[in-house]
């Protein structure tokens, strides 16, 4: 085990970095996708409601691995068919797109629940002051909603971080892919997958601890 770490530690750390980078970017995009579709789902406009529901149900109804294949192979095929024969998506771009779309659907639900957890009277008070819906949402409802959403967002971050391993199938050089490569070279499956598992665990346990801490802090300041 020691010798594997000695030989491969740069690859392992670099691919952990890729995993974190992919998660971070995807979650960032997912945040805005979630905000957009979450707002659509709480709006009174039937068309927006419908579009929001289609997105959330549609994406949640497709396994991430299928979505990743679709984005990585399907979309370039579509673009190539329209004449742009050289078009290709990098594994990083395809990975970020599929993970963002996937996490975005779950974030939309987190936003919807967060917005709905804010007392209706808050929106009514803002509107009765003459503030338009958008400003009321941005200044009054969303800041309160996001506070309650923080634990759920971190938990989504953890889920997405684990989901990045699925993206090894499109050749993205993240941690699980590195494991495949190292096992291919060393045939030391037990040690390698043990190391990989521990690496995931350390990052994720650290994150959940952070989430718990934040949650406690939020509860304390809300109780005041």
């Amino acid at each position, binding site marked *: 085990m020691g010798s594997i770490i000695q030989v491969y530690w740069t690859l392992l750390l670099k691919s952990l970095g890729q995993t974190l980078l992919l998660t971070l970017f995807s979650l960032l995009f997912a945040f805005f996708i979630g905000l957009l579709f979450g707002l659509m789902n709480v709006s009174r406009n039937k068309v927006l409601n419908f579009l929001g529901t289609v997105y959330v149900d549609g994406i949640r109804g497709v396994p991430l691995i299928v979505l990743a294949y679709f984005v990585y192979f399907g979309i370039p095929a579509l673009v190539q068919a329209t004449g742009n024969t050289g078009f290709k998506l990098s594994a990083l771009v395809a990975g970020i797109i599929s993970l963002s779309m996937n996490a975005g659907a779950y974030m939309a639900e987190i936003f919807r629940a967060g917005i709905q957890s804010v007392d209706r009277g808050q929106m009514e*008070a803002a509107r009765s*002051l003459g503030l338009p819906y958008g400003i009321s949402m941005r200044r009054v409802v969303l800041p309160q909603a996001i506070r309650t959403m923080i634990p759920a967002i971190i938990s989504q971050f953890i889920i997405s971080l684990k989901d990045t391993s699925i993206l090894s199938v499109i050749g993205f050089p993240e941690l699980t892919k590195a494991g495949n490569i190292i096992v291919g070279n060393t045939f030391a499956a037990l040690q390698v997958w043990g190391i990989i598992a521990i690496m995931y665990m350390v990052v994720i346990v650290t994150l959940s601890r952070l989430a718990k801490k934040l949650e406690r802090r939020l509860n304390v300041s809300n109780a005041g």
Partner: protein
Amino acid sequence: MSQMQDEIKEPVSGDRKLMIRVNGLKKNFKDLEVLKKIDIDIYEKEVVVIIGPSGSGKSTFLRCLNGLETITGGTVTIDGMNVADPHTNMNKVRENIGMVFQHFNLFPHMTVLQNIMLAPVELKKMSKEEAREAGLKLLKRVGLESKADVYPPQLSGGQKQRVAIARSLAMNPDIMLFDEPTSALDPEMVGEVLQVMRQLAEDGMTMCVVTHEIGFAREVASRVIFLDAGYIVEDGTPDAVFNHPKEKRTIDFLNKVL
């Protein structure tokens, strides 16, 4: 009610300006008819107290006035704008109508002063500096200037409601609506809120107040309306409604609450 209809005239009747005209107002929640047919004119500086059993539609009536509830039928005209018309810019109408809620609805993530400054600054009625000054003045008016930088959860119920009143005054409204402003308060805090409202009435604010505080109604109201089952049953001075009610339903209700 008949005496009201005789009075319906152009927006300025004698020396009094018509502030709110409600004509055949209806409000249904699905199959439930909450307001069946409400007609009332409210003039400048009137303090109208609305009483009635729970479920009679008092709060719904108030919420129809500033469009928090969509109106099923009839018209509500405020400042010449019809609230029932979906093309009316409700934000403009609401700038002139302050509303105070039973549960205060202060914004807990903003300080007291930020609560008050939000609308004037966001709607570009005032610069931040002007809004701060105006806000501090309003806080002084409700006796809470020392609480400007405190967050709402640290205030008592009575203080919260006084801040809520100050906040709804920040847009300089011509009309103030109060939806059971003291019902969620501990008894010892009711007085301080009623005192602020009394002061507001003395300053000439046009007010519609839904309340169970009969003492306040007797003392401050210029007019008392008894609402029951979606209709205005009785409408008159506090003396007329409380001491000489005409309708049996009014008498029954007053016997229960007095």
